[in-house]
C-alpha cells in the first residue's frame, strides 16, 4: 500500500496538533479537544458518525503520546495520558500497539468467486482443485470453505480472472507469521516472533497497527532545557529535500542543542565490516551478512538461527553515531531520527540511545515550529561523512560501502536481499544452510534490508521512496555542503 494514504494523514495531523499544543505549554489543557477538532459536527464521518470517529481518534492520540492502547480506559482523561507521557522517564515496550476499535477484524484470508465467473465449460478451477472444493451451481463456481485449503490454483487457472484472493493485509504483510486472530477475530501480535519491521503498520488499511510515539518525550526534554542531540539517519535528509548542512540548521531551530549525521556512524560501520569481512574470508568463512538493519538481525536470531554466526558483529551506524554524541557531550540526551520502527527496539536496548523519533515525528515538529527546511541556510559541517556512508539509506548501499573499503574490492561477491518478505526469509534460511554445510553460495557478502528499497522506504517515512531516492542522490552529489 502506498505509504501516503488516509491513515498516514490522520496520524501526522495528530502529531502536528500535539506538538503545537506542547510547544505552547498547553498540551494537558488542549489535548482533550483534539478529537473533536479533527471530527467536528457536520463533517463527513469515516465510520458511522463523528462520535465514533472521535472515540477512535482519542485512542490514536493516546498512541501518539507513547502509550499502549491495549490498556485503554475510557474514563481516563486525555490530559492524564499527556501528563503521564511528559513525566515518563523512558519509552515503554512493546514498540507496537493494536487498536482493536479500528481493526476491521478482516475475514480470514480466502478465495472468492466474483460475478465475472461465466460457469464456463472448461471449468479449469474445478478441474485443478486438489481438494475437489469447487462445484458449479446457480450459474457460478462455488468454493466449499470447509474443503478449501487456500492454495490459489483456482485463481491462477481462471481465464476470466473471476476468482480473487481476499487477504488479511497485516497477516499477509508479516514475513514471520507473528500476527493472527484472537477468538473475537481481532488481530494480535506475538512479540516473541515479531521483528518490528513495521510492515503490518504500513499495510493495515484501517491504521490499526500503530507504533507508539516518542515526540512528546523529546519535546519535554528540550523544553526542560536539556541538551538534546539529534542523530539523523542517512535516509532523513532526503525526506525533506535538504542539502547538506540545512538539516543541522533546521534541527537547531527546532531546539536541538546539536546534531550528528548518522552517516558518520555508517562510515565507522563500513570500515569495521570491511575489516571483519577480510578476516572472515581469510579464516575460510563461506559468507558474512551485514548487521545494520535491526529488523533483519532480529529476524535471523528468532527465525533463521543457522545464519547467526554469519551476521557481522559490527555495531550499527546508530550506535556509533550515539557514541560520537556522548563522547562530545557526555550529559546529552541522544535522539536518533530515522524512518524505522525496528530502530525503536534497537534504541530501547542500547544504553547510548535515549530516544528514537520517526521521520513523521520530526516532520511534525518542523511543521509545528513553522520551520521550512528548504529555506534554512546550510551550516558548515564540522565532520563530513563519505558518500558511501550517506548511501547506506538505499538498498545495495551497504554492500557497496564495504566493497569500496576492501584491499581487494574484486574479492567481494555481493548479494542483496532487498526486502524481507516471505521469499526473503526463505533466502535467509538457504544462506544459513549453505553456511552451516560450508557449501558454495552465489555471494560472500549478503546485504539484507528488511524494507524493499532500503531505509528510504522504511515504514515511518514521509516522502515517496522513488522521490526520496532522487533526493538522496542529489544530497550525496552536492558534496560537502555548508556555507
Amino acid at each position, binding site marked *: 500500500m*502506498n505509504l501516503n494514504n488516509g491513515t498516514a494523514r490522520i496520524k501526522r495531523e495528530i502529531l502536528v496538533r500535539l506538538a503545537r499544543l506542547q510547544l505552547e505549554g498547553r498540551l494537558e489543557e488542549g489535548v482533550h479537544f483534539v478529537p473533536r477538532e479533527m471530527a467536528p459536527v457536520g463533517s463527513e464521518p469515516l465510520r458511522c458518525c463523528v462520535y465514533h470517529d472521535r472515540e477512535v481518534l482519542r485512542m490514536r492520540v493516546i498512541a501518539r503520546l507513547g502509550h499502549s492502547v491495549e490498556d485503554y480506559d475510557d474514563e481516563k482523561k486525555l490530559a492524564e495520558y499527556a501528563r503521564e507521557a511528559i513525566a515518563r522517564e523512558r519509552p515503554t515496550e512493546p514498540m507496537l500497539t493494536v487498536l482493536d476499535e479500528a481493526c476491521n477484524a478482516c475475514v480470514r484470508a480466502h478465495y472468492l468467486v466474483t460475478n465475472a465467473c461465466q460457469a464456463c465449460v472448461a471449468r479449469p478451477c474445478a478441474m485443478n482443485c486438489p481438494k475437489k472444493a469447487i462445484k458449479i451451481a446457480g450459474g457460478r463456481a462455488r468454493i466449499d470453505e470447509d474443503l478449501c485449503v487456500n492454495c490459489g490454483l483456482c485463481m491462477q487457472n481462471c481465464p476470466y480472472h473471476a476468482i480473487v484472493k481476499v487477504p488479511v493485509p497485516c497477516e499477509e504483510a508479516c514475513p514471520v507469521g507473528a500476527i493472527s486472530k484472537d477468538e473475537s477475530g481481532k488481530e494480535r501480535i506475538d512479540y516473541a516472533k515479531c521483528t518490528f519491521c513495521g510492515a503490518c503498520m504500513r499495510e493495515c488499511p484501517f491504521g490499526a497497527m500503530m507504533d507508539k510515539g516518542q515526540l512528546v518525550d523529546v519535546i519535554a526534554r528540550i523544553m526542560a532545557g536539556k541538551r538534546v542531540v539529534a542523530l539523523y539517519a542517512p535516509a532523513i535528509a532526503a525526506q525533506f529535500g535538504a542539502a547538506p548542512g540545512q538539516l543541522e540548521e533546521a534541527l537547531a531551530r527546532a531546539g536541538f542543542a546539536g546534531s550528528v549525521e548518522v552517516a558518520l556512524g555508517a562510515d565507522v560501520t563500513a570500515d569495521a565490516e570491511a575489516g571483519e569481512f577480510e578476516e572472515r574470508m581469510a579464516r575460510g568463512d563461506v559468507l558474512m551478512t551485514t548487521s545494520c538493519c535491526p529488523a533483519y538481525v532480529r529476524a535471523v536470531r528468532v527465525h533463521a538461527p543457522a545464519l547467526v554466526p554469519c551476521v557481522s558483529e559490527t555495531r550499527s551506524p546508530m550506535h556509533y553515531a550515539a557514541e560520537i554524541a556522548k563522547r562530545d557531550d557526555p550529559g546529552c540526551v541522544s535522539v536518533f531520527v530515522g524512518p524505522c520502527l525496528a530502530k525503536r527496539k534497537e534504541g530501547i536496548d542500547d544504553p547510548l540511545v535515549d530516544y528514537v523519533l520517526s521521520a*513523521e515525528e520530526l*516532520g511534525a515538529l518542523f*511543521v509545528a515550529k513553522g520551520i*521550512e527546511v*528548504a529555506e534554512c541556510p546550510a551550516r558548515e559541517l564540522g565532520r563530513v561523512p563519505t558518500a558511501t556512508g550517506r548511501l547506506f539509506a538505499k538498498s545495495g548501499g551497504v554492500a557497496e560501502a564495504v566493497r569500496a573499503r576492501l584491499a581487494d574490492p574484486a574479492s567481494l561477491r555481493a548479494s542483496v536481499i532487498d526486502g524481507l518478505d516471505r521469499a526473503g526469509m526463505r533466502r535467509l534460511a538457504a544462506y544459513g544452510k549453505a553456511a552451516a554445510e560450508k557449501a558454495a553460495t552465489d555471494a560472500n557478502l549478503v546485504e539484507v534490508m528488511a524494507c524493499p528499497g532500503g531505509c528510504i522506504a522504511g515504514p515511518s517515512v*514521509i*516522502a*515517496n521512496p522513488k*522521490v526520496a531516492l532522487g533526493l538522496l542522490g542529489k544530497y550525496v552529489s552536492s558534496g560537502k555542503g555548508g556555507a
Partner: protein
Amino acid sequence: MADKIKVVVCSGTACFVMGGSELLLIGEQLPDDLKGLVEVEGAHCLGKCRDGHKGGAPYATVNGKFVDAATLPDLIERIREAARESEARGAGEVGDEP
C-alpha cells in the same frame, strides 16, 4: 501548438509531511490522453499553509489555480479541466465558434 499545462507541486516541509511528494510523480500517473500536455515542477513552500488556507496541505497549482489537500486523482481532474479550457480557447481563436 498550445502551451503546456503547468503543474507546480509545493515541496515545502508541511506539504511533504502530509504526503505532497507523491504529487511529484504526476507525470507517470497521467492517463494516455493527457500525457505530454503537462509540465511538472517542484517549488519551495508556496506559503499557503502559513496563511491557514482552507483544506490544508499538500498544495499544488494547475495553471495557477490552487488545489488544496491535493491527491493525484484531484490533480488529474484539474489537468483535464485545464485541457478542456485550453481546447475551447484554441477553437475560439480560430473563429469556429458561432
